């Protein structure tokens, strides 16, 4: 299973764009990359998923380079309510099982 490395914490200010990069050097060919968000005392919430290149939805964008050894979650114009833990997770294509790491705690300041 691919091991992921992401910053433990990040600070930002309201209205800024935030980019959180995750490295996954040994990602398997059939693994997807997903990102989840978790608020305190709540279940994780799916944000976005991709395999290669760029994916965008109403919440975020996900950039995955051709070698797929890293991915970057981009949150446009964050607000205070985006303060949360963000997890980068490779998903085994044949099990759907998610293995969570420590994630990145994003603190958005006014």
């Amino acid at each position, binding site marked *: 299973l691919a091991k992921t490395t992401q910053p433990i914490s990040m600070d930002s200010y309201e209205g800024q764009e935030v980019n959180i990069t995750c490295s996954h050097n040994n990602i398997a060919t059939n693994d*997807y*990359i*997903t990102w989840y968000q*978790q608020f305190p*005392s*709540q*279940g*994780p*919430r*799916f944000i976005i*998923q991709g395999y290669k290149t760029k994916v965008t939805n109403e919440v975020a964008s996900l950039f995955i380079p051709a070698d797929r050894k890293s991915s970057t979650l981009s949150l446009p114009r964050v607000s205070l309510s985006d303060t949360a833990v963000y*997890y980068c*997770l490779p*998903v085994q*294509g*044949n*099990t*759907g*099982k*998610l*293995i*969570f*790491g*420590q*994630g990145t705690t994003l603190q958005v300041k006014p």
Partner: protein
Amino acid sequence: EPEVTQTPSHQVTQMGQEVILRCVPISNHLYFYWYRQILGQKVEFLVSFYNNEISEKSEIFDDQFSVERPDGSNFTLKIRSTKLEDSAMYFCAGGAGTNTGELFFGEGSRLTVL
């Protein structure tokens, strides 16, 4: 938007007692999971369930744990004889397939073992 419902939201029990945590997954989901999160720690995979049987379980999921989906709707996690270290938030999750990483998590059941 459909959601995963978990009950109880909080349960306090004495060590050695049996606990059942219940989950109602989204109706068209076929794959079900239990995860737990000890306070301040990461979310840990416990078990996955598909086609009425366990498809994978972690080392945490020992003989004290069991899961079932008796009536096709409720998905339960039973801890037969609780220990202090079972105190955690337990999350149920479901998904429509394995070729996607999009799981829908419930709000969790907080278990406190005294």
